[in-house]
């Protein structure tokens, strides 16, 4: 199984950019009912555990929060690789650097270009690791923050976001062409414009390369489906 976790992948943007590979066979929006805020770490932790983790993860220390493997669905697979997954295997240095540059921009000490360059560099690095892992594990999950990170400073700039979605579409195409396994594309939340900037919206997105028959699933519902794929009964 392959899970492509794409931070802030927005359904209307996928349609606008005609991202057929991201949309796959079945796609739709996820429900974030029960969550006060669209916090990245909280939503991915909830996806991994199948439980609403909002009250368990304080805002201030969320980036250090880590789940044990047994709290997630990963151990139901004989072998697995989790690449840069928030609340589990996050590449802390990369994300700390992105957050530092984000703050520098708002403090007037850095530019959007400096920030974008680091986000794209991190994306390329992680993509290489992800593509190398395909076919070598029973389950590969990779998380990419490109749409979220670029979107926060530039969601209102169509040319920039088109480039981001084109890149993610190409990544999905590469996954599709290299595997017959179940491919789940999932985002934690969507994004909406605030002038040139982008703010989290509640329109999470999912897609699969086979019919799952889901209707507005919650992000916490996927654990059961994933464990079903692994041939285990849901816990």
């Amino acid at each position, binding site marked *: 199984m392959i899970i492509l976790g794409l931070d802030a992948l927005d359904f209307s943007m996928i349609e606008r950019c005609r991202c057929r590979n991201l949309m796959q066979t079945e796609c739709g929006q996820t429900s974030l009912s029960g969550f006060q805020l669209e916090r990245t770490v909280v939503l991915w932790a909830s996806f991994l555990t199948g439980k609403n983790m909002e009250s368990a993860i304080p805002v201030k220390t969320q980036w250090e929060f880590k789940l044990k493997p047994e709290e997630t669905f990963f151990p139901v697979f004989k072998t697995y690789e989790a690449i840069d997954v928030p609340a589990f295997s996050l590449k802390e240095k990369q994300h700390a650097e992105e957050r530092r540059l984000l*703050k520098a921009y708002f*403090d007037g000490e850095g530019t959007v270009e400096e920030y974008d360059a680091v986000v794209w560099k991190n994306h390329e690095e992680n993509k290489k690791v992800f593509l190398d892992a395909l076919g070598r594990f029973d389950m590969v999950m990779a998380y990419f923050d490109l749409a979220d990170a670029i979107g926060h400073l530039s969601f209102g700039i169509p040319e920039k976001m088109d480039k981001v979605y084109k890149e993610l579409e190409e990544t999905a195409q590469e996954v599709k062409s290299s595997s017959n396994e179940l491919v789940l594309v999932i985002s934690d939340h969507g994004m909406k414009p605030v002038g040139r900037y982008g703010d989290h919206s509640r329109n999470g997105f999912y897609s699969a390369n086979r019919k799952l028959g889901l209707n507005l699933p919650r992000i916490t519902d996927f654990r059961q489906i994933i464990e079903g794929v692994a041939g285990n009964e849901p816990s």
Partner: protein
Amino acid sequence: MENYLLDLERKSISLIREAKAQFRNLGCLWSTGKDSTATVWLCRKAFFGKVPFPVIHIDTGCKFPEIYEFRDRIAKEWDLDLIVARNGEALEKGMSPEKGKLDCCTQLKTEALRDLIKEKEFDALILAIRRDEHGIRAKERYFSPRDEEFHWRYKDQPAEMWDLYVKPSEDFSHMRVHPILHWTELDVWKYVKQEKLPINPLYFADYVKKAYGLENMRYRSLGCKPCTVPIASKAATIDEVVEELAITKIPERSGRAQDKEKAYMMQKLRSLGYM
């Protein structure tokens, strides 16, 4: 008094009395601008001439000299129990708008207020915000709870129908009370005129020309000196301000230096834990 101003005043006074009755330790924020001065005046009227709780001025150390002069003069004239709150530590470390406007606001305003609330154990604060000032303020309630981090759950607020407001509970750190939420900028100016309220001279073009040499300019909203710019205006009297506001389409806070979208995003990213 014009009937509608009387209605606005009645509602505001009843809100102030409700707040005094409900909360153990109430305070009123006073920037010395037209809105908060009108609000302090309403507090005086609500309690027959004497404000029975402290009036708090957050001093960032970089306000206009006219603000300090006005504050001290009116505090004396109106016999106010004035508390001046400063984030001394940040000021000693040289915090200023040059080091980042939003960080400066956070440290010199928000943190100064947070420390004061803790020190004086305020459980409710009266603020002079109005719904017509900004889109986000339009979502406010008359009684609006905040947690220790000043978070406001604007998506989870009760309706305030039939004058039923949120009651004190364990779920929040302090309550914000907004007695002039339903007023407009124009209402405040008409009220200032009606009540013959003292007003900071920076609101008038003739004073700004005399004191700062700026032709046909006046301040429409008062903040810290480095972050507030005057607007183009010839209004030199309250009547002229009223006349001008009746037809203007320029937002009231357009003279504030912070870029709203940028400020919004920064606050949002902070609340999401990015910064």
